[in-house]
């Protein structure tokens, strides 16, 4: 049993990175490893977009990540700076920036880049999926 972390920097639909990362995450968990967190950075923050409405015959990645969190207790950490620039805000940040409505909700949590460094150095393996 090893501790894994995933860094995802690709948006869903625009690139395959999110598909690859989600599949890899499930395989890591199935193999009995502990997935300590998925960190969403760069365009990867779009994986947390709760308003995403993909076609019904395509995989819904936002729901896919939420299911992974529910099944295996994996924290889904979204870089707050990268998210704000890209229009992804939770309720607290929306209020702080005077925006009505929000685009991120649990199990995704906005957090700082320090969490990525912590994950990367604390886990046995960090695997990056870029766009």
């Amino acid at each position: 049993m090893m501790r894994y972390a995933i860094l995802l920097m690709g948006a869903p639909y625009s690139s395959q990175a999110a598909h690859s990362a989600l599949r890899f995450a499930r395989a890591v968990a199935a193999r009995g490893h502990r997935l300590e967190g998925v960190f969403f950075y760069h365009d990867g923050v779009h994986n947390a977009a709760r308003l995403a409405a993909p076609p019904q015959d395509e995989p819904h990645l936002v729901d896919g990540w939420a299911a992974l969190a529910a099944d295996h207790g994996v924290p889904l950490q979204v870089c707050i700076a990268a998210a704000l620039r890209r229009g992804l805000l939770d309720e607290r940040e929306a209020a702080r920036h005077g925006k009505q409505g929000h685009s991120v909700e649990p199990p995704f949590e906005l957090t700082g880049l320090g969490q990525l460094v912590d994950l990367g150095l604390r886990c046995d393996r960090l695997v990056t999926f870029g766009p």
Partner: protein
Amino acid sequence: MLLHILNRSPATSEVFRQALAAMGPDDRLLLIEDGVQGAVGALFGRFSGLEGRLYAQEEDLVARGLAPLCAPSVVRVDVEGFVTLTEEAQKTVSWF
């Protein structure tokens, strides 16, 4: 031994050269996503010298119809094999 992961096609992107430059003599290279194009036809020539250390993600080859065209010396791994490769390597480095 490190595992390098490449997801871009050598047909369009020069990133494969960065991956090759950063690889140590025992390191492995796994082609995923559009990177699996590098396991096919003339593009495979870009990775000469990596025999036995060049891997390709089976599911990505199959989805693209490229499995029948994959060079025989490329080691094809499914997602479980991908996990195994990350277990065996000290760390992974991604090139995209």
